[in-house]
């Protein structure tokens, strides 16, 4: 006669609150909501652009010029940088280990390359947008 195995109860909905690493993982994963939101925001902009009216475009831009959107974008930017971009770069050497001959390239090299590439890519975006 065997006894039932002991199953430690783990909450399905709040399990990540037990540990800081799990919380950080969840914060990174929920940034997908921001990605989805900004993707559809950009699609809306394309829809207005496809309409071909400069006035509609200008009123679309003007409708965002208020404190709510300044706050929203500022918080989204910081949240995204801290929990998605920087975290993704930190994980990069684990996902893309670089073999050089017998040894693996030091992790810090791969991370630094990612940061440099990120600065270059951001500069290209700002250049295309006419900011710099």
């Amino acid at each position, binding site marked *: 006669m065997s006894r039932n195995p002991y199953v430690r109860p783990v909450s399905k909905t709040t399990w990540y609150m037990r540990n800081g690493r799990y919380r950080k993982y969840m914060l990174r*994963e929920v940034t997908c909501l921001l990605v989805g939101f900004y993707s*559809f925001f950009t699609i809306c902009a*394309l829809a207005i652009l496809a309409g071909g009216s400069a006035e509609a475009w200008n009123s679309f831009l003007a409708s965002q*010029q208020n404190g709510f959107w300044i706050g929203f974008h500022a918080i989204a930017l910081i949240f995204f940088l801290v929990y998605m971009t920087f975290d993704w770069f930190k994980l990069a050497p684990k996902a893309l280990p670089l073999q050089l001959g017998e040894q693996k390239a030091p992790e810090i090299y791969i991370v630094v390359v990612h940061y440099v590439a990120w600065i270059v890519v951001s500069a290209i975006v700002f250049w295309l*947008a006419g900011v710099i």
Partner: protein
Amino acid sequence: MAIAKKSVVWGLFAAGGTVTAFLFPALIALFLLVATGNVPDGLQFETFHAFAAGWFGKIVLFFVISFSLWHASHRLRVVFHDFGVRQDKFIARAVYLVAAIGTVLTAYYLYAIR
């Protein structure tokens, strides 16, 4: 078959993750600039319309938006699981459907910008 499907979803997820990690901070910063009233020259109607009308702009916009959407939907599917929603089949269909709709809309609007 299951393995083949999985690799497609995973590939889109990884490509989208890289695209979003690299590009979204700059993108959100541009939205922030617009919100503060400092609309960059490249986002004025004439210049942005010309950018989206050219083949380079179309390719960039299409791949950035669609990769980001597929990345976000795959991640959202996992997030639902993590928050205790276990109807994975339904969630998967719903999130991938939204990504597919977004991809088609992007292609359509880009086609319409001429």
